């Protein structure tokens, strides 16, 4: 029970990171980007590719299974994922944005997600891969609860990113512009802000977080081309649970989905685990269609 809770918090924090990016882009760009989960996969594989080039030239930093190279690779992967997101926006979404039908964009994102997944499959193959073969010993934290050092790292990194992002949205001009854009694009332009720049930064931030989420997934689970496919539902469940555009809500939503998935395995066969986010999603949409903390970007009320 306790162990399941700990595992749930862990997978929840990875979902949360991906969901933050999704909630930001959904709140600001105003469409459900189904390709977001593929950015998570892309980020994970880009880090693997960078590691393949640099090699593990430095040993892991005890007690973790990874060292400076993976951290460096994650940073580069975040940059490459941001580039991919900007390229997708420019090539696919920008021409579609003026379409009167919003669904065109959503279907466009479906196409993009398939394309990205297939490119990853072509480049890296379908077999599961790992950043490191180092075996880790789980550390007992509480009686009946053991956590890998890597998992601990994942948790603390998520907390640090959430706090950092909160300050960014509250205290910086760009953060303020993003919140303004999420509420009213036209008024933001009337206020003298070039919204195209703000949109580009939104992609960069959302994609970078997706990449980090992917690296952490690869670190604590494994790398497979289906990461995005497996995460798409939990991500949307977390975003809708927290209210579209609400960063803090996405974090709480991610944790709820992660914990629910993990605890559910105790009562239902593991094969049904993937259905849990669906059930949560339906329940929330039924009771509170605007999410638990409905609100726009940055909204910690």
């Amino acid at each position, binding site marked *: 029970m306790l162990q399941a809770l700990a595992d749930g918090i862990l997978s929840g924090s990875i979902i949360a990171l991906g969901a933050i990016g999704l909630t930001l882009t959904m709140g600001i760009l105003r469409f459900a980007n189904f390709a977001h989960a593929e950015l998570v996969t892309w980020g994970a594989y880009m880090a693997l590719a960078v590691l393949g080039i640099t090699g593990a030239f430095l040993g892991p930093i005890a007690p973790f299974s990874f060292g400076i190279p993976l951290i460096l690779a994650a940073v580069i992967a975040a940059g490459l994922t941001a580039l991919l997101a900007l390229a997708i926006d420019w090539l696919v979404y920008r021409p579609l944005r003026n379409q009167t039908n919003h669904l065109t964009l959503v279907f466009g994102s479906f196409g993009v997600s398939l394309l990205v997944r297939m490119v990853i499959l072509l480049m890296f193959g379908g077999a599961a891969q790992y950043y490191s073969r180092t075996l880790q010993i789980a550390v007992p934290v509480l009686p009946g609860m053991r956590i890998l050092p890597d998992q601990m790292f994942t948790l603390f990194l998520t907390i640090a990113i959430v706090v950092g992002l909160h300050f960014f949205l509250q205290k910086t*001009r760009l953060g*303020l*512009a993003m*919140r*303004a854009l*999420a*509420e*009213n694009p*036209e*008024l*933001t*332009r*009337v*206020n*003298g*802000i*070039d*919204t195209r720049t703000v949109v580009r930064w939104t992609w960069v931030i959302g994609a970078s977080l997706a990449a980090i989420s992917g690296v952490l997934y690869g670190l604590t689970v494994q790398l497979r081309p289906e990461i995005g496919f497996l995460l798409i539902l939990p991500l949307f469940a977390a975003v809708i649970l927290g209210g579209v555009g609400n960063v803090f809500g996405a974090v709480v939503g991610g944790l709820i989905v992660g914990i629910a998935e993990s605890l559910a395995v105790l009562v239902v066969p593991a094969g049904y685990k993937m259905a849990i986010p669906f059930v949560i999603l339906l329940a929330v949409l039924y009771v509170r269609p605007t999410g638990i903390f409905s*609100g*726009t970007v940055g*909204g910690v009320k």
Partner: protein
Amino acid sequence: MSAPLLQVENVVGGYRPDLPIIHGISLTVGEKEMVTIIGPNGAGKSTLIKAIAGIVHITSGRVLLAGRDITRFPTHKLAGASIAYVPQTNNVFTTLTINENLAVGASSMPKPDAARQIERAYETFPALKDYRHKKARVLSGGQRQMLAVARALLTDPQLVMLDEPSAGLSPLMVSEVFQRLKQLVESGVAILMVEQNAKAALAISHRTYVFAEGRNRIDGPSQAIADNPEVASIYLGAGGRKR
């Protein structure tokens, strides 16, 4: 008389290029002048202001500010060109605080300048200062209008365009808002506004344009427009309702 501050020449435009709403409108606003646009619903009053603001597409015609061609300027460059625009509805960010609303309006200037201009806005509108850390959604209609005007003035514009500043306000608030606008003109800012509240607008503005069906109909000193019997017939003739 020297060249007017704002010169609109034969502007044709609309939300869609194939569906013009304004069919060749011309007007001028002089320096430190207050000009009102009135007319029945669907006359293209708001559309013209939005066209000047770069929100509505201009298919032909020109807009000059102090002789400089600003036709098809992107909306976000307007503030830099010394024009401020206050939309009719949703003119404040309700999810942001009063201070943040002003910070967004001042975000194109260097930070020290922005801070100084925001302090100045609070001096001009002391009522806003008490709410500076409250979300704008708690403000009343009149207070929102004040915030929207305060925001527009942050960049020290030469011309402020307002779309129905009195819409949805109580009569008391209407006279306060108009009083503020009058002070603004006295301080050297030119105003171009669209008003449904024709009576009050005619009483304080220098000149008035009457539009109908996307075209100029009558214009002249506001007093003359107020006394012109033809104005009422334009409202009635176009199926509009005189307020």
